[in-house]
Every structure is written in structure tokens, then in C-alpha cells.
């Protein structure tokens, strides 16, 4: 069964460093998303991506964040200068009708 994959599963970084989180969505899906879940809190929407551009973003998704689909299969989330409060589990999802989520990347910013 097709699934969304994410790498790395865990990432530890120093505050101020750039991180790139990678996702491979399900191949025939058209809509792509990033969400995050701070420990013990709700899953929060960050950004949606359709037709090679951002379709919607939340107020969390500020200028420090960017997304790309560089090669038609990968979908990346970049955080330019990480802050302590960026520590969270980041989920990628893709959709035809149902959103399927990847296993997440646990990001820890020290």
C-alpha cells in the first residue's frame, strides 16, 4: 500500500541553524501539506501546496519557513533559522481525497 515517507525521523539542531525536512508524498496525490505537533499539543496546520505553489499558509508559517517540491517527488520544509519553539513533530501529508500522513520528523532545537 502506498505511503507517505519522511526523513529524517529525528533531527537535533542548534538554535539559529537551518534544517530541511524531507517528505515523499504518495505518487498520484495532488495536494501536499505540512503540519506540526508540539509535544502534548494539537496538530497544527502549517502550509498547503498545490500545482507547485503554496495554496494556503497559517500564521505560524512565517518568513523563516519555506516549502519546495524540487523534483516532482520530494516535498521539503525548510526552516531557515531555527528557534527553540520550533521543537516539535513535523508531519507531511498528501491527499487525493483522504489526507495520509507520514510518520513524522521529531525536531529538537537546542
Amino acid at each position: 500500500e502506498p505511503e507517505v515517507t519522511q526523513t529524517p525521523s529525528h533531527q537535533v539542531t542548534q538554535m539559529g541553524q537551518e534544517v530541511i525536512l524531507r517528505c515523499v508524498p504518495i505518487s498520484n496525490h495532488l495536494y501536499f501539506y505540512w503540519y506540526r505537533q508540539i509535544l502534548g499539543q494539537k496538530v497544527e496546520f502549517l502550509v498547503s501546496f498545490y500545482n507547485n505553489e503554496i495554496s494556503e499558509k497559517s500564521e505560524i508559517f512565517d518568513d523563516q519557513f519555506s516549502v519546495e517540491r524540487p523534483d516532482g517527488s520530494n516535498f521539503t520544509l525548510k526552516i531557515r533559522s531555527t528557534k527553540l519553539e520550533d521543537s516539535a513533530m513535523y508531519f507531511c501529508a498528501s491527499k487525493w481525497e483522504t489526507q495520509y500522513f507520514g510518520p513524522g520528523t521529531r525536531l529538537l532545537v537546542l
Partner: protein
Amino acid sequence: SQQGEEDPQALSIQEGENATMNCSYKTSINNLQWYRQNSGRGLVHLILIRSNEREKHSGRLRVTLDTSKKSSSLLITASRAADTASYFCATAAATDSWGKLQFGAGTQVVVTP
């Protein structure tokens, strides 16, 4: 803002019992989805119910949707220890073309053998 809110926050049951949890939301939706999350892990899709549907079944899961009350319920029948997890409802707003999901805070279910 539209959000799914689950009730109860936590549920502890014995194996073999049924578990029922509820979700309320605030605005019109296209669909409502239920997900399961084992501790610290990913979100596993359980079931999607469209706004024009009232009930759906998948194995031991039964989901109902009452759009007039803006609520949904998830019933897990004959629960097993492996059902121990957090369960989230997530709504896709009718006004949102891009389908982002808004999640509730979840119900933590513990099934003891």
C-alpha cells in the same frame, strides 16, 4: 475558528468493552476524519465521513456524523489492548478549497487487558 474538540479527554476501559468518543466542531464541513496516534508516533487514518453521510463502518469502528449538531462520534467495539492510543477528529472546512485539516486535542484511550 473551526476546530474539532473531542470528548472525553481521556478514557480507560477493559479489553472487550466498547469505547465511544465524541467530536464537536463549529462551522460547515466537507468531511470529518478520524485519526489514531500511538504515543510519539505518526497519524494513522481511520475513517473519513463526508458531510452528506450519517454513518460509516470500518471493521470494529463505527463513525456517525450529525451535521445539524455539528458533532461526530467514534465507536470502537470489542476493544483490544492494541487500541490504546490517542484518537483525533479532524475537519475539512466547506469554505476551504485546499482541504487543510483542523484537529482537536484528542481523546487518550487506554485499554487494559
